[in-house]
């Protein structure tokens, strides 16, 4: 997925982005970080074509993305499930658009739930689940749509630290296992530890209007530990880019 010369402004005229360029490589976990209020979630919505850019374009396999598509699937910061549907029905929602036979829909939904570690919880309603389980349902729903790109907007922000850590450890394997058709994951976060733990490439968004001020590749071996001195070095690098003011280092 590529973003070319993207500009965007809100309805009230405020210019949020100017000249955003980035490229998310195949089989890589990409993160976008930036200070609070810089427009990280807005950028993710532009990548998913939920918002229209003022200028520039978003490309998938070289073709412009002009409207939302199941090929680019979004996992929200606020964990979104439908309270009137069971876990399985929530997941099946993304398969229904394919007009498959009922049995096939059930099979795909069950498999997606199994992938995120929720086998046996098919008939539970969201109210009967913890926050972590609900977020797994949301991830399963996205995966069941067979997306090429997964957009994740601070997916662990509303979970307690213990649950978030558990899900973080699972998520990379869930997303890039052999059965997953996923090509790329793009995650937005302000939690730098989480970003280093998961990402292969990090884009730093900063400035006003915001633009990409740096790209950092992380090639630490997995699983990654925050106690590793190399982890700290990457953390310092990211932190220094985030303290940039007006696009220049402070």
């Amino acid at each position, binding site marked *: 997925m590529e973003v070319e010369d993207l500009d965007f402004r809100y309805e009230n005229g405020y210019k949020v982005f100017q000249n955003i360029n980035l490229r998310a490589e195949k089989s890589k976990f990409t993160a976008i970080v930036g200070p609070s209020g810089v427009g990280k979630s807005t950028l993710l*919505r532009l990548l*998913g074509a*939920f918002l229209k850019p003022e200028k520039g374009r978003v490309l998938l396999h070289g073709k412009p993305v002009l*409207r*939302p*598509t*199941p090929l*680019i*699937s*979004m996992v*929200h*910061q*606020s*964990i*979104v*499930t*439908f*309270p*009137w*549907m069971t876990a399985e029905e929530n997941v099946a*929602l*993304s398969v*229904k*658009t394919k007009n498959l036979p009922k049995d096939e829909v059930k099979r795909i939904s069950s498999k997606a739930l199994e992938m995120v570690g929720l086998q046996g919880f098919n008939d539970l309603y*969201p*109210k009967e689940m913890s*926050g972590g389980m*609900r*977020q797994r349902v949301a991830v399963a729903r996205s995966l069941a*749509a067979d997306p090429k790109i997964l957009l994740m907007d601070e997916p662990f922000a*509303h*979970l*307690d630290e213990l649950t978030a850590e558990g899900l973080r450890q699972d998520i990379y394997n869930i997303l890039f296992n052999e059965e997953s058709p996923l090509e790329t994951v793009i995650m937005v976060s302000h939690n730098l530890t989480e970003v280093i733990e998961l990402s292969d490439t990090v884009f730093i968004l900063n400035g006003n209007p915001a633009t990409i001020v740096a790209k950092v590749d992380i090639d630490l071996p997995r699983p990654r530990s925050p106690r590793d001195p190399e982890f700290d070095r990457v953390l310092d690098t990211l932190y220094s880019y985030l303290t940039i003011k007006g696009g220049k280092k402070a």
Partner: protein
Amino acid sequence: MIAQNALSLGSINGIPFFTITLAVLATSFRVLALIFLSIISGWLLAYGAIKSKIFENVFISLIEIFESVPVITFFPVVLIIFVNRIGGELGVELAADFLVFTAVVWNIWMGEYQAFKTVPKEMVEVANNYNYGFLDTMSLVYVPFSIPRIAANLFPSVSDGFFYITVSEVFSVGFTTYATFGIGTEITSLLAESNYYGILATFIIMGIVIVTIVIALRIFSERAVARYTVDTDTPIMRRGKPRIRQTARFSAVTSLNTLGKLARYNRERRPAPDPEEIFSKKPKNSRWNIVAGMVALAILIYILYESALLVLSVSGSEWSYLFSKTPSLLYGLLLDYIRVITITLISLVLALTLGYYFAYRKRAEKIGIPVIQTLSAYPVPAYFPFVFLAIYPFVDSIFGSYTEEALVLFLGFLATFYYVFYGFWMGVKAMPSEYNEIMQNLDMGFFRKMRYVIIPSTFPYLIAGITSTVNSAWGGLEIGEYWPDIAGHKTLQVHQGLMKTIDVATSTGNIALAAWGSFLFAIIVAVYSILFTRKMMDLAKKKYVAEEGIYST
């Protein structure tokens, strides 16, 4: 004899502009004053309900039944008590007012009760912490918290109020027509004189007043949501462009937030309690409880006394007559239920499509919603005779011998469509934005969106809207099933229906039959309410709360 109070001042070319304006203002004043009275009384009753479990159970059960029972159920009671017992102009005025009061009050009372019940525990704790008395707790915590709910209920209440006031200002019992000054009476009088320019002027003046009221309500609603809703995303209006009817209250409302005012008010007013007081229990306000209990008991005894008198005043032969009429009344009710279901289904289908269209097209919504709000406040009984005249030949060419049936259904539709439409539109607007993104993301078509996401999300709103629609459909049938002299000497009437029987019985002075029909109607509608409406509302609250689908800490 018509008790005609209309003034004939300020006529230009035979059009009594001054009288018409006064009549429009009188009617509007009645509606707004009765809504105001509902709000004030609702605050007191809601406070009583949250303080006393027994009172709460009785109060809520009664509201839930009355909310689902159409206003015309009260008509015979109104006629008997106010016109026969009080009599004179005061009796007629009170009859009209009572009818409108019963049309607008239940929604508002229920909204206030729900708001009082859901005041965040922390706010109540703050009030308790600073030893607030009744007035302080009400004015600084409960009343501000209830404002958004009241604002949400104002549009349908104003529409309901105008709908019923125009018919309740003039009504006939036997050969006597009672009238009180207002636009309903004025239109009747202009129609009798065939003063069509006068009627046109009436609609224009009424349009101006209704648009003004709708604009004022919209401003109030926006402000109420921005100011009094907890954790709203709507920006709080501090300064801005001058708006219509900017009042001193604006600065009072926007100067400080509610909790800020609450805290400051408390600091300035209350000395710190003596240490000894902290360890003694707060004295209960038992004197007020006794007074309230005695008033409630007195009202109950009065109602029972009046009911007993009423039952005893009916002779044995009359009871036999009423029982013999019961099967045909019930058959009429069945036919009316079919009519109500037809009207509701048509309204629902149109509401779902039009509501969806407006909710997702900003430009259309900006124009369409205020237009529909204004049209809905225009009382259907005032303009329907002209619609009747205009479309009769066309409808006749399609429906033939069923023309009048179709026109009655159309009248019912005009009186009701707005409620389910507005309910659905509000539901779609209140849907979490994430749901919209997921629907876009999964590339869902219209029917799939509706089936899996939009209708379940808006289910509580739809049920509330359908309940109001059903109630208003009964009102529409009450007016339409038997409308003598709707245009010239033409009478609009259906072949058979309970509402027609009640109307005919009332206009021929057969109050016993009208009251018996209304009583049977009230019983069946109350049972329907308990078995269906309440169950659906419970289901909506239990399963279809879209907000619960968004999990965030």
